[in-house]
């Protein structure tokens, strides 16, 4: 019965059905009661409606992850990977071969227009593009030797999100939900805030052949400002709440009668539960999206009061609230109506504009998570689909840099990684990954490992084969573990 915190028995269908038949409470009163209840007793029915099987392969160093995706490809040699020789040899030809496969043609070396300084106790280098983030370098684990396989946005974005650049495969967040389940049965395990619909679009958060419950739930997309980004159909635009409750009550009766006539049928039973969960989601999600309950100090900390930072600030603050609520995989995408970090030209003004939009919100997210004790089991991951060439595309003040998948920087923070370290290097000019190279597959393997999942054992049978996020690749980089 429902008086014990509305926990449905996990037994066979008939048991649950019997319980429903004995129950005198209708849907409305049930939903009302559960809304008033504490979250601890809100754990929902373990049916197809909620992701279960929290089944890590080994002890996890991080329980959840926030991926700050810098769409377009920020330049490594202008942000975190300073190259004195690049400055010295500005305007000269690259003294070694460019890759056989390039996206566009580039000319000679182009020095960074920004100054770098060392910061914190660790003395990590950060350019003047990120003054606020620089204060947190002792929490950052710089990966300078990331490399990928595809020099075009589409292929690289899909590779980054799904491990494949030419097939539709489950996204990383789907693999994580599949492996770990959710901590909160009223919310999806995987959310993505304002993702881009270009370059693979929904495939970058879809579950492909994994069951649909593991697909990411998107809040808006990159064409929608973050204060208008909501989960589709989460609110009813016409019917007041009390009418909807009456409706759900009537619906439950109809469906229960139908179930009784149809005989035990698991999917019909699951359908009853799905409406209960939907109603709880409908109450829970808007609460997380509602940032007005945050103190003014917090809102200012993230930069909600500043039109330059407000859009990304809201995403970061929402990400923290999702993390607190038990969502496993949270992605935040920085992408404007162009491809945000894709500076084939106008590197100086545009990288500056981009950095200004994210610097304070990201610094605030790190600070806030740490202050709340969440950083230790939340992994933060920052990066784009590739970096940029140290050689110039175009010339003069409007010069830019081309795509470069051969060597670039991402950083991790929190969740079981060492702060204040740099791992791997690029060559003297920052073109190719050199020492301790980390391929995108290796990064995937490492992140799964940090979350308690063995990338070789996290498999799913489809079309006669067991698939993995890392295909047949992937090497875990344990050297960065705290």
């Amino acid at each position, binding site marked *: 019965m429902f008086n014990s915190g509305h926990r449905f028995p996990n037994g066979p269908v008939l048991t649950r059905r019997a319980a429903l038949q004995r129950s005198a409470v209708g849907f409305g009163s049930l939903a009302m009661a559960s809304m008033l209840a504490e979250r601890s007793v809100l754990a929902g029915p373990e049916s*197809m*409606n909620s992701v279960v099987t929290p089944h890590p392969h080994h*002890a996890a160093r991080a329980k959840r992850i926030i991926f700050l995706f810098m769409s377009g490809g920020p330049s490594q040699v202008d942000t975190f990977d300073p190259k004195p020789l690049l400055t010295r040899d500005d305007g000269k030809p690259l003294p070694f071969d460019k890759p056989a*496969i390039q*996206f566009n043609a580039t000319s000679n070396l182009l020095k960074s227009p920004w100054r770098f300084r060392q910061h914190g106790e660790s003395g990590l280098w950060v350019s003047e593009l990120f003054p606020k983030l620089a204060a947190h370098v002792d929490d950052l684990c710089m990966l300078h030797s990331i490399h990928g396989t595809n*020099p*075009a946005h*589409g*292929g690289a*974005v*899909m590779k980054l999100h799904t491990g494949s650049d*030419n097939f*539709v495969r489950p996204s990383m967040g789907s693999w994580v939900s599949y492996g770990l389940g959710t901590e909160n049965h009223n919310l999806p395990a995987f959310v993505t805030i304002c993702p*881009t*619909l*270009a370059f*693979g*679009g*929904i*495939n970058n958060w879809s579950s492909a052949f994994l*069951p*649909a419950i593991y697909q990411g739930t998107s809040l808006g*997309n*990159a*064409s929608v400002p973050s204060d208008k980004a909501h989960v*589709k*159909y*989460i609110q*009813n*635009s016409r019917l007041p709440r*009390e*009418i*909807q409750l*009456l409706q*759900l009550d009537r*619906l439950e009766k109809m*469906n229960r009668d*139908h179930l009784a006539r*149809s*005989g*035990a*049928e698991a*999917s*019909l039973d699951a*359908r009853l539960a*799905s*409406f209960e*969960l*939907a*109603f709880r*989601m*409908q109450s829970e999600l808007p609460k997380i999206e509602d940032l007005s309950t945050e103190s003014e100090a917090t809102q200012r900390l993230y930069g909600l009061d500043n039109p330059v930072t407000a859009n990304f600030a809201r995403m970061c603050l929402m990400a923290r609230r999702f993390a607190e609520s038990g969502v496993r995989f949270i992605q935040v995408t920085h992408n404007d*109506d162009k*491809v945000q970090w894709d500076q084939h030209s106008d590197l100086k003004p545009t990288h500056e504009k981009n950095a200004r939009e994210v610097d304070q919100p990201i610094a605030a997210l790190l600070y806030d998570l740490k202050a709340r004790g969440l950083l230790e089991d939340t992994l933060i991951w920052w990066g784009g689909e590739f970096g940029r060439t140290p050689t110039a595309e175009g010339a003069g003040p409007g010069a830019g840099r081309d795509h470069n998948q051969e060597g670039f920087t991402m950083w991790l923070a929190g969740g079981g990684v060492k702060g204040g370290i740099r791992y791997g290097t690029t060559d003297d000019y920052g073109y190719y990954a050199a020492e301790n190279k980390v391929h995108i597959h290796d990064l995937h393997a490492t992140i799964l490992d940090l979350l308690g999942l063995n990338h*070789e*054992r996290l498999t799913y049978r489809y*079309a*006669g*084969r*067991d698939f993995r996020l890392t295909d047949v690749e992937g090497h875990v980089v344990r050297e960065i573990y705290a």
Partner: protein
Amino acid sequence: MMLSFLIFLLIDESVSSVNPIAADQLRQFETEVRPVLVDHCLKCHGVEKQWAGLRLDSGNAVLRGGDSGPAVVPGQPDASLLIQAIRHNDADLRMPKDEQLSDQQIASLVRWVELGAAYPDQAPRAKRHRDRDHWAFRPAADVAVPDVQDNAWPRSDLDRFILARLEGQLLTPAPKADRRTLMRRVTFDLTGLPPSPEEIDAFIADEGPQAYSNLVERLLASPAYGERWGRHWLDVARYADSNGLDENIAHGNAWRYRDYVVASFNSDKPLDRFIIAQIAGDLLDANSEDERHEYLVATGFLSIGPKVLAEVNQPKMRMDIVDEQIDTVGRVFMGMTFGCARCHDHKFDPIDAADYYGLAGIFKSTRTMDTYTKVAKWHEFPLQTAEAATMQAEYDAQLAAKKQAIETCIGQANEAARASLPEGQTPPESLETLYPEAKKAELARLREELATLEKTPPELPSTMGVTEDEIANVAIHIRGNPSRLGDVVPRHFPPVMLGPAEWVMPPAQSGRRELAQWLTDPRHPLTARVLVNRFWRWHFGAGLVTTTDNFGLLGERPTHPELLDWLAKRFIADGWSLKALHRLILNSSTYQQSSSVSEKAAELDPENRLWSHFSVRRLDAEEVRDAMLFVSGQLDRTMGGSLLKVKNRGYLFDHTSIDTTDYNSKRRSLYLPVIRNNVFDLFQLLDFPDPAVPIGDRSTTTVATQALLMMNSDFVMQAADDLAARVCRDATADAVRLSRLYQLTIGRQPTDPELIDDLAFLQQINQSLTATEPEPEKRHLKAWSVLCHVRLASSEFIYVQ
């Protein structure tokens, strides 16, 4: 690691189909229990060490136990030392010592003991990898129809195959479904739409012996049949109106392929001809211009796959496209996954890398793309139609007129200019410099208009499709790498299928025509089996081979191998006629069973693999939408054409992420644009298949986001408004209206308790609306909409019995 896991799942077929309970237990042991024992226990309690005298590496050893007694008491987890130890409740008995098992692992072991602690002595025998004698590679057998005890039940031989297995398990078929249920089932099945109340009444009133078969014939003849069954085919053809992947641009002409498929199903085009046209239509001799167009359109099948159009590595792009074609042809027609063999010999199926590149030669000799530079362009055939000729002629006339206007203008101006020159002065090289300003401006305008016109030729009708390219055999790409080439392989078909290599590749053609003929050769072991299995799946919700797209060694075995072979042979004998197969299936007793499950069947065959009843099914995404439009009287039955608003090769999605596709049409769902990377959300939520890959077995999930869609989407609420208006227009008394609502939506009359509940509900809603809607009539209509909304969201509407 992955391999050992695979081996566990390659359970010997003899165990998997005969006794479902044993198979379940075995699966539970092999997937959940043995791995835990191996990973956490056997190091100290196995071959090498036997701490405390205990071994856990066999069933006997577990029962015998160690120094403290038996490790397990079957059926009694709480009394089993092993379970006490892993629970870590007793300080003296905690295992493993270093780290407690996860809750999930503990639960698995407890369940295993509860179920009786079955422990097969060794991991079950793995299937022989790369087995050339695998059932699916053997030709379909001539099978005898089995004898049955109950000779009254079967209506055809098909039923005898089903009944024989049921009788073997001491099961009986479910009773025949009542006529209303059957009517609703078969109407949705063949047309994707609900029956109208008038159609139901007519069918119920017809008490003749032919009533049901007449109904089947009427439905098969309805154009909606092709819309429903053509859509099934589009699932496996990975049909989409956009490329998807990296550059999501419009397949502006893909709809011609879709319409071709619908027309082919409606005309019951023999499936062998249908297949041949899709693979080699451009190589066939046509009897008329129309037929020629049809053949070209059909080859769109090979072209509509997703392609990485900004791939900078052009040889890789080319081989990726070839790969997609091989994989699609393999899965769709043979239920085989050839993709693996691109990098190495297939691990499980007897397909070598050489076989893969033998097929690759055929597709490499085929031109799919006109250019490979980003953004690459796929090939299209212009279609020489009367409409095209008119458009071209109009355009040519416009061009000529504009040119003429320019010439006239120049002629006049030159004359004037010459006349204005003082006597004896040599005219300048260009007289134009002498024109008055107004004339110069006029000329400039005309020239600009001409330039614009030249830049915008009309979009003449054309169709995506493939043609022949330079004929060449392909070298093996070592590990799939286009820059590491091995031996050149002659074009050929995988020898494991269809005996001796009697097929000779023509030196001057790609070999697609031969490929198509080979596939449709009645001796081919896979094509007909794969097809009839697909059709069975689309009728019954599961295939005889449940893995409809994989008949290889990792696929499931057929539940009724003889029936599958019998159907395949019969299908070929019937001239590859799908409508003949429909008649056979729909008129069978097997199909006409009710969906009530006997207790015994629920216990012995919970997945209904023996077809002891008709499995309840949820409507597909398209059916949900179409049925809502249909019952609310809004469905637009116009057939064919394109609803895409973007021009051919235009971007559906660029970096702005703005969705410009309009789904607000009232046309059938089949005609809504299928946009890869961003499928219409109503479809996405209701398990529409990923249009980037062939999918013959759609999944059916039940998730909360579907409930949100039903509760909150404007589409459903609009349908509720329209339905309410329709019902209220048809009658004035609420009770009569309710009767109409039930008839329209679920094909039956309301019961008395339902009437009472619904009337009370209407009143309740009416009251709640008093504050916001003062006008009684409007208020009542709103209340009706609220009720219709509930009915549209109800399981009885969304499911078919």
